[in-house]
């Protein structure tokens, strides 16, 4: 395969959840982007999209993360994150937060940063023009589209296109796929009973597919679905989409 990313310098936005709890996802994103020829940089000033504070209503507390984001990626042409949810927050919330708490200059800067921010599936399909990334994953999987990735970032068909091109992979339809898994950030602890009831439905639908893995473009949802799956001793394993895309035949040899 040619190197569609040749000459591209990509700022990786790991996101706080991946940085702290799921480093394997951010590592997979790095490896995948490098394999496609991109130069990957990780500006260490980055922190988080601020969504947890924003969506709990603490706009002022979120502003620090918003500024850190604009500062950290100032020198990058494109920013890529393995999370449709964080990307959606950058695009839809940062300007609102900057307007509420900062100067017009800050609004400008966060809008510039937001305009060059992509979820990794968008970057691969739209910017690099690839759906076959040379991945190999000989397993039965089912895909949970994740609410923010599907309805806010509007990833659409991209994740499915990428998955269908993975060699050895069998993609099984998830019943009620677009239904929320019940995570909802702080909702999961403010309304734990409803959250768990929704996660249980999702987990049951996942198990019913007979898949070995449940795949999603966001680790927060996977943490929720996976939490119910392991508590119920189900054998299905959660895995982030980029971790599948990063694996090649060599890894399986």
């Amino acid at each position, binding site marked *: 395969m040619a190197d569609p990313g040749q000459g591209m310098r990509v700022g990786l936005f790991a996101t706080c959840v991946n*940085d702290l709890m799921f480093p394997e996802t951010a590592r997979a994103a790095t490896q995948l982007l490098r394999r496609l020829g991109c130069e990957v940089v*990780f500006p260490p000033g980055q922190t988080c999209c601020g969504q947890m504070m924003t969506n709990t*209503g*603490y706009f002022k507390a979120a502003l620090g993360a918003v500024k850190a984001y604009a500062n950290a990626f100032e020198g990058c042409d494109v920013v890529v994150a393995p999370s449709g949810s964080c990307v959606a927050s950058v695009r839809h919330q940062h300007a609102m937060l900057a307007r509420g708490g900062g100067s017009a200059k800050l609004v400008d800067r966060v809008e510039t940063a937001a305009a060059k921010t992509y979820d990794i599936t968008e970057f691969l399909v739209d910017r690099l023009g690839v759906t076959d990334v040379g991945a190999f994953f000989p397993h039965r999987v089912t895909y949970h589209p994740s609410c923010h990735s599907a309805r806010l970032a509007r990833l659409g068909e991209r994740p499915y296109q990428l998955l269908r091109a993975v060699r050895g992979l069998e993609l099984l339809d998830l019943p009620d796929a677009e239904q*929320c898994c019940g995570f909802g*950030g702080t909702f999961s602890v403010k309304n734990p009973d409803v959250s768990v009831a929704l996660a249980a439905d999702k987990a049951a639908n996942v198990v019913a597919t007979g898949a070995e893995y449940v795949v999603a473009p966001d680790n927060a949802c996977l*943490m929720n679905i996976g939490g119910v799956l392991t508590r119920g001793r189900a054998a299905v394993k959660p895995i982030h989409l980029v971790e599948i895309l990063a694996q090649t035949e060599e890894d399986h040899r």
Partner: protein
Amino acid sequence: MSAIAPPFPEAARKQLANPQLRANLRRATSTIKAKRALRQAEMADWEELRAAAAAIKDRMISQMDVYLEQAEAALTRAGAQVHWARDADEANSVVTALVQATGATEVVKVKSMLTQEIGLNDALRRAGIAPFETDLAELIVQLGHDTPSHILVPAIHRNRAEVREIFLAEMGLVGRPAPPDLSSDPNDLAAAARAHLREKFLRAKVGISGGNFLIAETGTLVVVESEGNGRMCLTLPETLISVVGIEKVLPTFQDLEVFMQLLPRSSTGERMNPYTSMWSGVTPGDGPSNVHVVLVAGGRLKALAEPAARPMLRCIRCSACMNTCPVYQKVGGHAYGSVYPGPIGIVLTPQFRGLDTPLDRSLPFACTLCAACADVCPVKIPLPDLIVRQRHKVAVAKTADLRPHLEVLAMAGAGWLFRRGWRLALAGWALSVVGRLRGARGAIGPLPWPMSRWTRARDLPAPPRQSFRAWWRRGSR
């Protein structure tokens, strides 16, 4: 109700524990949700219609005063009497006085959200006037001494067997009893309701309605319904009192073409609803001769006062947002402690009532922000954004409280942590120490409070041995 009602999470837990309710809700919401999606899919210009509806409503909202005065003039010209009410109390006393002036001691009612919102039935009862709901589902709710749990299908929480029991026990106490051999077959239930209601329609001197739309240029009121019971109330009595929210005004008659395509499809999943009644004032010899319209401001002024909150006034009460809401689907309407449940409810209720009670403060958080509602709303209300805005108001209120809230401290801490990359590096290091001490990765089971809110029914992944940042610093390979 709000002063003693429990906050949403508690009320929700109670509803979740009711398997009958959950089964009824699942059946009802999934059927109606699928029908709506089907009706949307067959409309090639659905997105254009939504955009048009939003634009018409926004035009109305930005010049509401102009259109309301136009409506008042047109209504008056057509022989209707217009009354203005600043709030619920004023509206209730205007309506009560109007009924008393006719000498009637009972009224028949068309299903109306606004009269529920202002508590008109209670006000009438206090004045010795018996209000009879005539919408089948509202009748079930009223006979069952219950409160509505859905704005369109108020008895969505009841199934056929329950309805049969209510009819058998209660109908006879307020009018024509149900036949003693009543079965729970829907046709039988409907026949019993029809016989019970018919007696009321033929006797009633006063009808009370709401209104889905009020056309400013012609003074035309529009009621959209499915059963025809509304039509009976609108045409048979001598006196008709319509209680209408000020945001129901539409500039022109032609605007209706947009809303009549969107509303039935969004609410019941029908291409067209069976009965649409329109009337402009009085037509001699045809229908009510004494026509009143009470225009109610209520909490709507509070929404108008805040530009960012105004889109909530576009709502046409179709209920698509609640049918598609995962939280509503699980717990139903009662947990919200308001006549408006679901996504639009958790936006409207705190706007109208304020954020003084634990319940009202908990409402904006009764949502996973999954955004499914925003995709189905026919007037394109950005519900998730409005919900986040209500949360912001709660956060501001909590921050200003004299009593310290754990959440305020936690969020300030998170804000501090996420301001600088090195702070996150430190947090990553601390987590990796835990990760290394635990050895293998894998799931963490039940933990004490406050982690128990997560771990009571689901595991937590163990932290990794190395954060991503640390891996990157060590050469990223």
